[in-house]
Each structure stands twice: as structure tokens, then as C-alpha cells.
């Protein structure tokens, strides 16, 4: 990077003098653009004046459209809220309201929230932007409605200086969507570095994406451990020969690190701790699960401490605050964010145990146990239930349920199980439906009368 992150006001500033020459591209499944041309052709056409100084929500079907819009909006709009690809239409309304959005940028016809946003803009006077756009990223919340987290170009690009992949011939690929923190990091690394970037298409299979990555001679690839397990199960896995493999977003266990190391012997395999709240915490490149205990308390850009068994992070890379109705504070008095990830020290290393709140990570997607329990408890024969994580070598975790029945069911237990599964399938997205249901005589309660959740 030519410009240090703290001095960077917008992506376009960097692109005015793009490093790495004209042979850099952003490729999508059906489109591509030369990085050098990004400044000359604004994807928003004549609408740029409409977005100047305003709060803009980007809700697109295609991530390529979102990427081009972001480049145009950064440094022009006052606030850009980037909707994740799985955002339910009923939640878009809340996002628009919480972001106090005046404009929605979309590649499809957005129904009711758009008309509301239009009404809000009618007597709006455009403000001059100080060209430091506030970036708002979405992360899933307890009730299914997303939480909005405020970042800046500075916090998002802070991890990039000195990071891997700054060479001129680097071609990045990621199994993440660029509208999630993990994908956005890679997009920014490619754009602000000297490399190119191959984006996955909407609905593109992992095998098809691997073939395209191979065609563009990908050198650096990132994804969750679950993404990588799917890669290793694909016949196209041998098509790519990356120099660098990065895992984040889920616990990287020794099994997947070893499997990648032996399948791609030419690659260095690293795993990163990162979340939308904390940004990139740290990167581990020694091929081992967990992280060295020496990182805790060490001076540097990112400070790490362990308190009450959970990992806490303080850095310039973290989100600034929550936006909207979310009342809880992001940091403690010392500026540390509690990641909620429980760790245990064994020898000179810390290992991740799971989430304190019992949040289950199924292939990179969060599941709040309470939501699944509420669905199960709708069955009339159920007295109470507890939903917990069950280890899976394919998706990291699966949802498992322990169920206490109110009384002896009239029919066979198998019928009750089938009915509970049916209710769950009707009310929950597939990754939240319990993979197994176990009937138990009782469940432990913690002192406050709450269900005891194992960390």
C-alpha cells in the first residue's frame, strides 16, 4: 500500500494513483473490470450527486454490483450500510430505519422500504461530506434481525499494512461474500494492494468457482474452515495451487490445518481471528491450532487479554460502535471488546472452546440456541429444551437438542421427534434445524434459574 491506513480518506484516493499498473482486475462470474478503469467510469452513473453526503444502504443481489457501488460511494456518501446477501426482506426495513438511510442502491426493485426512504429524502438538504465515509456492516443478532456495526475505512484497512499478499502478482480469491467482514477484508487487500481479485458469483458452486480461480491463476485464497472442507471434497480442488491459504470465521482445528497442508504442500496455511466487531485480531502462521500464549499482553497494534476465560481485544481495527436500537456498549472501560470466545490455556498455547453465550457456529453461520429452543418448545408435549453445539468435521458444529417432555407421550417417541423436526423446518432456516434430538429426563439449571449452557 502506498498510503498508510490512518492517512487514507477513501478507496478512490488510492485508486487515483493505482499501484501495480493497468493489468489488475476485479473478476466476477459474469463480468470483470480493470482496476485502472474504476475511476473513469462511475457505476452509479449520474446518480452520484444524489448520494453525496447522504446515508446510503447498499442492498444488491450480486456482490460485484455491491463492490462497484462501494468504490463510488466511499468518500462521497456520509454513511454506507452494506447489506449481507442473506438479509431477509423483512429486516431490510429495520436496517434502512436504523441507518437513517436516505437512498438505497440496489440491482433489483426494492419494495416498501425504498418508497419510505424516498419520502424521507424529499425535504433533505445534501450535506457536504468530509469525505470520510462511515461504513456500517451487518452481523446477525439474537432475534434474527441484524445488528449494525459502525466501521471506517481506517478501521477496515488497519490490518492490511504489512500483511501478506502485497506483491504485484497476487490474485486473491475468497469463498466469503465481500459483503461480510471476511470477504470485505480480501476485497480491500486486493484493491488497495497491487493484486487482482476473483469474486464468486451468486449461486455459483464451489467447483465452478475453483475452476474460475484456476483460470485466473489464483495465488491467495481465504475462507472458513467449513469452506475449505468443501473444497477438499470437490473434484476441482486440484485445479488450484495457491501460495497462501487463509482460514477465519470459525475455529480452525488441527485436522483441517493438516489436511490443507498435505493437499497443498506449496502453500503456507494461516488462520486468523477476526469478527465484524473486533476486526482482524491476529493471524497465526505456524500451522498449529489455537494461538501462542505469548500474544496475550504483548505490545503492538492489537492488544489481547484473557478475562473470565474469554478473549478480549483492543485495537484500531475494531468497530466504533453499534448503530440503532442496540443499547449495549461495544467495549469495556479500557477499550477492550469481549469477543465472547472462550479459550483455555494448555502449555504455551491457548485453544478455542466455543462461545460463552452458547452461540453455535454452523459452517460460519451463527445460531442462537434460544431461537431454536423457542421453536422446539412450541410442541405441546415439550416441557423444556436445551440446544447446544455438537462437533462436526464438515461444518465445524451442528445443532443438537436435549428435550424434556411434559408427560409420557401418547404415541411413540419417534413421532414426537418427527413433529418437532417438522416445526423446526417450518420456522427456522435449515442450518438452525437440530441435526439430532435427544430425549432426557431433566436439564440442569444454573443458579439464576437459567438453563446451564456449556461454554
Amino acid at each position, binding site marked *: 500500500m502506498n498510503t498508510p491506513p490512518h492517512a487514507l480518506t477513501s478507496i478512490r484516493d488510492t485508486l487515483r494513483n493505482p499501484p501495480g499498473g493497468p493489468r489488475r482486475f476485479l473478476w466476477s462470474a459474469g463480468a470483470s473490470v480493470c482496476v485502472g478503469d474504476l475511476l473513469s467510469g462511475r457505476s452509479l452513473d449520474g446518480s452520484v450527486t444524489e448520494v453525496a453526503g447522504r446515508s446510503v444502504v447498499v442492498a444488491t443481489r450480486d456482490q460485484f454490483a455491491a463492490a462497484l457501488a462501494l468504490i463510488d460511494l466511499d468518500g462521497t456518501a456520509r454513511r454506507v450500510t452494506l447489506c449481507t446477501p442473506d438479509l431477509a426482506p423483512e429486516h431490510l426495513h429495520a436496517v434502512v430505519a436504523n441507518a437513517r438511510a436516505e437512498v438505497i442502491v440496489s440491482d433489483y426493485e426494492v419494495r416498501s422500504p425504498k418508497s419510505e426512504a424516498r419520502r424521507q429524502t424529499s425535504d433533505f438538504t445534501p450535506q457536504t461530506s468530509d469525505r470520510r465515509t462511515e461504513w456500517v456492516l451487518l452481523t446477525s443478532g439474537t432475534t434474527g434481525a441484524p445488528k449494525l456495526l459502525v466501521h471506517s475505512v481506517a478501521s477496515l484497512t488497519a490490518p492490511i499494512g504489512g500483511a501478506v499478499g502485497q506483491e504485484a502478482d497476487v490474485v486473491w480469491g475468497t469463498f466469503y461474500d465481500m459483503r461480510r467482514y471476511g470477504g470485505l477484508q480480501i476485497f480491500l487487500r486486493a484493491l488497495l494492494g497491487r493484486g487482482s481479485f476473483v469474486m464468486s458469483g451468486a449461486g455459483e458452486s464451489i467447483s465452478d468457482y475453483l475452476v474460475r480461480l484456476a483460470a485466473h491463476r489464483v495465488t491467495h485464497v481465504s475462507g472458513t474452515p467449513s469452506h475449505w472442507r468443501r473444497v*477438499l*471434497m*470437490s473434484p476441482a480442488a486440484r485445479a488450484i495451487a495457491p501460495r497462501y491459504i487463509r482460514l477465519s470465521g470459525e475455529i480452525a482445528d488441527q*485436522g483441517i490445518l493438516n489436511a490443507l497442508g498435505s493437499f497443498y504442500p506449496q502453500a503456507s496455511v494461516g488462520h486468523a481471528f477476526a469478527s465484524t466487531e473486533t476486526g482482524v485480531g491476529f493471524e497465526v502462521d505456524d500451522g498449529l491450532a489455537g494461538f501462542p500464549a505469548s500474544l496475550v499482553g504483548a505490545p503492538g497494534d492489537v492488544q489481547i487479554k484473557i478475562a473470565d476465560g474469554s478473549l478480549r481485544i483492543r485495537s484500531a481495527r475494531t468497530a466504533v460502535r453499534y448503530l440503532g436500537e442496540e443499547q449495549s456498549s461495544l467495549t469495556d472501560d479500557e477499550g477492550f471488546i469481549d469477543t465472547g470466545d472462550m479459550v483455555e490455556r494448555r502449555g504455551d498455547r491457548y485453544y478455542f472452546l466455543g462461545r460463552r453465550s452458547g452461540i453455535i457456529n454452523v459452517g460460519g453461520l451463527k445460531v442462537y440456541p434460544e431461537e431454536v429452543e423457542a421453536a422446539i418448545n412450541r410442541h405441546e408435549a415439550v416441557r423444556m429444551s436445551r440446544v447446544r453445539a455438537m462437533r462436526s*468435521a*464438515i461444518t465445524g458444529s451442528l445443532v443438537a437438542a436435549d428435550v424434556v417432555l411434559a408427560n409420557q407421550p401418547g404415541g411413540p417417541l419417534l413421532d414426537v421427534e418427527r413433529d418437532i423436526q417438522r416445526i423446526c423446518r417450518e420456522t427456522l432456516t*435449515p442450518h438452525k434445524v437440530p441435526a439430532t434430538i435427544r430425549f432426557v429426563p431433566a436439564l440442569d439449571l444454573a443458579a439464576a434459574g437459567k438453563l446451564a449452557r456449556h461454554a
Partner: protein
Amino acid sequence: MSVKATVISQIQQIADHSSTSLPPLTDDLVLLDSGLDSLAIAILVARLEEALGFDPFTQSDDTAYPVTLGDFIRFYEHAAACADVDSRHAS
């Protein structure tokens, strides 16, 4: 029931539940092309652990990932044979 028959029967049950129509379950069928996504394959592994009593993916840190249905079945047959040897050694 043989390991292979157990695997096939569990795949069919999962496909029935999710109303997925399966292609013919031949040995060279690529698992990711079978209509089962990775969540369904994860559930399959969990159900097989209940049915067979072991999960070959978590038995060691050195796991190869199966690409075809034939690989997958051989993976389980191999683990079952190892488990059998272990239990005879133990008795």
C-alpha cells in the same frame, strides 16, 4: 446391515426429509453433486455416528476428505475394520 447399506439408507432418509431427489447412488457419484449440501453431509456424518458408533472424521488429526460416494463408504468401512481390530485387541 453392512456399513455400505447403512450409509445408503441414511442418505436416502436425509434426502426424503428435505424433499431432495437423488441421482443414482453409484460409487463414482461426487458427493457435492449428489444434491446433498455440506449441511446435509454434516447431518449424515452425525446420523452415521449414532447408527455405527463412530465418526471417522474426528478420530484423528490426519483426515483426508472423501470426494465421491465410493470414497466416503470406503472411509467408513476402513474405520469400521480398525474399530473391529481394536475391540478384539481389547477383549
